[in-house]
């Protein structure tokens, strides 16, 4: 049974629209992360969280916000989506011991 679940799995959005990507984990891990994967760039960290109520900027936070309302849930919000945000987004959870457990990914296309 998947311990990190992302929704939606696929999303098409219009430029300037608002997009919310959701992530739920049943690992009871304190730390959660949002990465994006692009050809030639590997995985790049957007935002992460130490626990409920906490959000921190990763390496490429511009254009994104994050929300961690509970231990289990971590959302990534694109207030004004742009075509450059077309990508595959991965959510992950971990303890402080570094092993990341990834969700299946969300493929986002911004037209």
């Amino acid at each position, binding site marked *: 049974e998947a311990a990190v679940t992302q929704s939606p799995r696929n999303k098409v959005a219009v430029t300037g629209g608002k997009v919310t990507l959701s992530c739920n984990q049943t690992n009871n891990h304190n730390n959660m992360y949002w990465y994006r994967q692009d050809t030639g760039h590997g*995985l790049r960290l957007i935002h992460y969280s*130490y626990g409920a109520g906490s959000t921190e900027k990763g390496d490429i936070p511009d254009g994104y916000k994050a929300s961690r309302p509970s231990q289990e849930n971590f959302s990534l919000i694109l207030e004004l989506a742009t075509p450059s945000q077309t990508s595959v987004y991965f959510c992950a959870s971990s303890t402080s011991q570094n092993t*990341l457990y990834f969700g*299946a990914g969300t493929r986002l296309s911004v037209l």
Partner: protein
Amino acid sequence: GQQVKQSSPSLTVQEGGISILNCDYENDMFDYFAWYKKYPDNSPTLLISVRSNVDKREDGRLTVFLNKSGKHFSLHITASQPEDTAVYLCAAGETGANTGKLTFGHGTILRVHP
């Protein structure tokens, strides 16, 4: 600058051969090093990891070698098989920072030909 680098975007190996994947890093504070495997349209999964207090770790066909003075670590896959064909991502992080967050390389596509 890029903190974790995989200089080879791709590698092709014959079945039964040894695959050697390389990774360089810049941050002296990194003390955790890992290799993740990713199939197309799937999520990355941890293959093997090592902490800085050792310079080698074996797990079946997989061995990680760590050279801290050279800021370099590598993954050796012996007896490579076609099902090893995938993208391999190296990653590094700081355990002391208590965040668990990792910095990834761009990935190396490994192709194992029968």
